[in-house]
């Protein structure tokens, strides 16, 4: 149907014929380039009169062969001349080549530091807005977005029950099993209760749940707010006179702060159950005895610490998620970058806060023997 591009040299003239289009020159590109180069070198007249089709890709091809100037003798139809003319008249901006600069790493470092401060400022802004909104809602309680809060509790809490239970149970079994191996060599079997009780209730339960929820709900929140920004839904809300922070940010932060301690309670219980079963099988410690000595081995302060950690972790995760969500720019790259940053930052902050908790609560809840 289409004729392949051909180049012939006839009595001192270069004759091009056939279809000169991107699709038709591609298969024989190397050969054609060679032929054109040779023809150009021998300074002949050009006859393009019998070309059937000429598109701009092929025109660029010819124009480059001619070293960006018209050949002295050229036979071409007006239509095709116009195509090449357009190529000739294209203004090419100068290419800016990035040269390596010794200042570049310094600039990168500086940008990272400034970025960190901007992030801290942004987080403070989100926090401050939350306080203002809470103050406003105290005066206008009827505007409290209960529906959104309850939806988030269901999504981030109720739907997370199976996965937190599974992970908690497995961690409980593992810790119990490994500790039992060690304790048996010292004949200190009974201390399994102390180890499991304090480790799970005080430390593992909250951190485990926080990491799971940061990955599960934190990323979802960032992505949701981000997509709402991309699709201008947030602007639509604002245009209706509805505060985006009260309707979108506040419910998430409130709900996650409420729901995380409950999840911690749930996951810790299941983890203890796993530990108890493992202790029963490995060390023959009966369930009744385990529960009984748990009360004596683990002061209630540990539970309070564990649940308060859950409270703070929940708040931190939602806080970070909302901040990064609001930072999403309307493109896919920014969405994925911010979602990643949200999860990483949330988990890092959770571990950081956990360390701070460990230092400030060091005098509480450790049984003195």
């Amino acid at each position, binding site marked *: 149907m289409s004729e392949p591009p051909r180049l012939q040299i006839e009595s001192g003239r270069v004759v091009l014929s056939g279809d000169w289009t*991107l699709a038709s020159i591609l298969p024989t590109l190397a050969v054609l380039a060679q032929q054109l180069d040779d023809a150009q070198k021998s300074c002949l007249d050009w006859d393009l009169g019998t070309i059937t*089709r000429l*598109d*701009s890709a092929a025109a*660029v091809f010819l124009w480059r062969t001619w070293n960006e100037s018209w050949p002295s003798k050229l036979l071409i139809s007006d239509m095709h001349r116009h195509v090449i003319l357009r190529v000739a008249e*294209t*203004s090419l901006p100068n290419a800016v080549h990035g040269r390596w600069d010794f200042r570049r790493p310094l600039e990168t470092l500086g940008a990272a530091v400034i970025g960190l401060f901007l992030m801290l400022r942004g987080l403070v802004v989100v926090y401050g807005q939350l306080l203002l909104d809470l103050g406003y809602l105290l005066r206008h309680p009827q505007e409290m977005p209960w529906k959104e809060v309850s939806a988030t509790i269901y999504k981030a809490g109720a739907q997370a029950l199976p996965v937190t239970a599974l992970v908690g149970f497995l961690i409980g079994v593992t810790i119990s099993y490994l500790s039992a191996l060690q304790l048996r060599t010292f004949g200190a079997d009974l201390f399994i209760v102390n180890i499991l009780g304090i480790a799970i209730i005080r430390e593992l339960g909250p951190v485990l749940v926080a990491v799971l929820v940061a990955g599960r709900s934190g990323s979802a929140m960032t992505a949701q707010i981000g997509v709402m920004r991309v699709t201008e839904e947030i602007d639509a809300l604002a245009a209706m006179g509805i505060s985006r922070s009260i309707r979108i940010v506040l419910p998430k932060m409130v709900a996650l702060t409420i729901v995380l301690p409950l999840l911690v309670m749930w996951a810790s219980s299941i983890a203890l159950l796993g530990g108890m079963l493992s202790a029963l099988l490995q060390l023959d410690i009966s369930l009744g005895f385990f529960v009984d000595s748990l009360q004596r081995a683990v002061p209630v302060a540990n539970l309070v610490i564990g649940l308060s950690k859950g409270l703070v972790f929940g708040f931190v995760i939602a806080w970070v998620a909302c901040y990064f969500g609001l930072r999403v720019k309307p493109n896919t*790259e920014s969405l994925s970058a911010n979602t990643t940053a949200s999860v990483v930052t949330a988990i890092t902050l959770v571990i950081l806060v956990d360390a701070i908790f460990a230092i400030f609560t060091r005098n509480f809840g450790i049984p003195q023997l």
Partner: protein
Amino acid sequence: MTAPSIPVVEMRGLATRIGGRDIHRNLDLVVEKGQVVGLVGSSGSGKTTLLRQILGLLQPSEGQVRLFGQDVVTAGGEMRRNLLRRLGVLFQGGALFSALSVFDNIAFPLRELRRLDEDWIRRLVYLKLQMVELEPAHGKLMPAELSGGMVKRAALARALAMEPELLLLDEPTAGLDPERSRSFVALIRALKSELGLTVIMVTHDPETLAGLATHIAVLAGGRIETFGSQADVMAAEHPVVEAFRQGGKG
């Protein structure tokens, strides 16, 4: 010119069901080389769906879609790729890759060929930008930084990058001011005469339709109700056409 040329697009007995709803029933459409077909119909009559079927993005429930004489649905791998390289699409929302700059968006299909060097690609990209009346400096911008009209033009430049034989336009002039809209029509017309481009466009704009279309296909009730040259269809008695006639005068 070979005497009985193969139609660029040929749809026979096409039926589409999406979610239990009939979009098309027994639809026939044949577009010959060099035609500029305006696809009109009321909102929700399945015009965009039809374009998606030409692209093979959507499988018809029944019937056949042939592009340049080859079945789009059954063509696989290399053949399908070659087939799709011969057409360019301007999506309704532009569908520019948001992570790439305008320049890289237009260069993307050319780079995918893996045969052209960077200098060649650069010349082509700036040529296309010029064709759609964008400044070379606009090449550095990201799609999020463009106005609605500029997105359209950048997307058209990308659609034209591969020198397509068939151009599919979904609402090409929606969101452009009348001035730009007219220059856009002139641009497509010029391209058509230079390259023998075949165009299928969905449009609601009477002016674009009148200025560009050589043929009009009226989509109603899941079928192509009327197909013919612009003058014939515009003279016909049809509610959809009537609406366009009114719009054209107003």
